[in-house]
């Protein structure tokens, strides 16, 4: 179907002053905002804005497995459903989930499973629903990061959080946190995720071309940036309880004030 404006890529991905098109340095992250407990009906939930990416994640579980034959007698199962809204991308996405969404769901599921104690929940399922409502490159990493937060918000025992980020190569230069344009027009894209309980990679994909040396450097800069995002995850988790604490303190204060009168 034709569109009035066509999706075109710029020839250069760096500006005259050496910065990237959105004004960032090579090792600079886009602004990241996270919040937990945003969906009341869910057992746990989180919302993430990462540059122009906007992602919701909700966790339900442990609950009955549906359909029943998927249940495992000795352990729980984790099911992840990564979906994008029709309006999250340049050209309207068809409403039914496509091959890409199914593959990414699986990759994220495999990434998150190691941090859970599924053997403690035989016969049940944990379902993680991820909805990308606005997309601009790196949605699988954003989704993994926000899904880990939602699991933690649900109070599900975890060995650690999981944090994810894509690094890559554009116009021959190594950069971190590729934007949508950089992802499409760049030379290499390397999404990865770390499970912090053992500091190992739990999600790893790579498309493009890099020399061995470039790969080594990319990995190292990814780990540095991942630590920065991890701190933000922890702050987001804590801030929910800090808010509750402040609220309770305020109530107690107003009660004691009332008593004195």
């Amino acid at each position, binding site marked *: 179907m034709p569109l*009035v*404006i066509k999706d075109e890529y710029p020839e250069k991905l760096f500006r005259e002053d050496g910065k990237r098109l959105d004004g960032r340095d090579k090792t600079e992250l886009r602004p990241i905002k996270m919040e937990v407990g945003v*969906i009341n009906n869910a057992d746990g939930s989180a919302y993430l804005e990462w540059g122009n990416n906007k992602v919701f994640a909700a966790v339900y579980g442990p609950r009955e497995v549906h359909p029943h034959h998927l249940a495992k007698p000795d352990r729980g199962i984790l099911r992840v459903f990564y979906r994008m809204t029709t*309006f999250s991308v340049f050209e309207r996405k068809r409403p039914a989930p496509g091959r890409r969404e199914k593959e990414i769901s699986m990759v994220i599921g495999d990434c998150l499973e190691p941090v859970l104690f599924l053997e403690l929940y035989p016969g049940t399922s944990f379902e993680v629903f991820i909805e990308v409502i606005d997309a601009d490159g790196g949605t699988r990493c954003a989704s993994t990061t926000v899904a880990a937060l939602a699991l933690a918000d649900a109070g599900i025992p975890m060995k650690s959080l999981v944090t994810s980020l894509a690094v890559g190569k554009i116009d021959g230069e190594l950069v971190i946190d590729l934007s949508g344009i950089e992802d499409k027009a760049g030379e290499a894209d390397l999404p990865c995720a770390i499970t912090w309980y053992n500091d190992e990679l739990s999600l790893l994909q790579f498309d493009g071309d890099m020399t061995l040396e470039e790969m080594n450097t990319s990995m190292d800069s990814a780990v540095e940036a991942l630590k920065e995002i991890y701190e933000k995850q922890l702050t987001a988790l804590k801030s929910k309880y800090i808010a509750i604490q402040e609220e309770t303190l305020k109530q107690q204060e107003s009660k004691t004030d009332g008593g004195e009168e």
Partner: protein
Amino acid sequence: MKMMNIKRVISSIERKYIADNLKKEERLDGRGLWDYRKYNINANTIESAEGSADVTLGDTRIITGLKYEVGTPFPDLPDEGVCTVMAELLPLASPLFERGPPNEQSIELARVVDRGIRHADCVQTKKLCIKEKEAVYILFVDMYVINHGGNLIDCGGVSALTTLITSHLPEGKLNDDNNLEWTGKYLNGKDIVNELPFVLTYGKIDDIIFLDPNLSEELVSDGRISISVTEEKITSIQKSGAATFSVDEVKMLANKSMEIGKQLRKDFDLWQYLVEK
């Protein structure tokens, strides 16, 4: 462990409790029979969409976005564009929602919102024509339920309407070779939207009728009726569920809808969300 179906949790005791309170014209959340929960509108929140809105009504939250395609018009309406409405009840939004293709409930939501808009002279389909018989805009207004707290229809209606008002469609024209070209300008809400229809939903338990059922009221009510109104006219009605309504009740509700609709139109002042581009 939580069961799949939270409908079971709404017991006959809770039903009686809600109904008894309604008879005293009291509701569990402190509202009167004809009060809405608090509406909150955030407009134009999605960068990738050509219009969008994030609307909450109490606990209910619906995010809507607009996308477009250029296609050929229907043969019987050669100079009119098309506007379609879709709704997704995300399993993320409630344990009541299941995965899979659209079910009755999501189709009803989309249809009721669509009919309220379609019969109201809201979307100016003639303005969506690029060239007669050749090229028109096809608009997709897609609603996603993010949290289900009852009364999706009214929240969806405001969400869809706000989305249309925030629209910014690149203006196209066909050049001499019949190829599509961008004029460099945009069509916005002022070009596309005329009337502002609102849909108002009432629940019924026994012989008590009340506006804007919340989730527990919705789960225990016998049925509901949704009425779409513009400034001057009633444009669409949908009765659903097993409840029946007397003719007098329907007349009374139509009258109430016009009244409350006027107030909403004034309070929301949706034209403030126009996007100039």
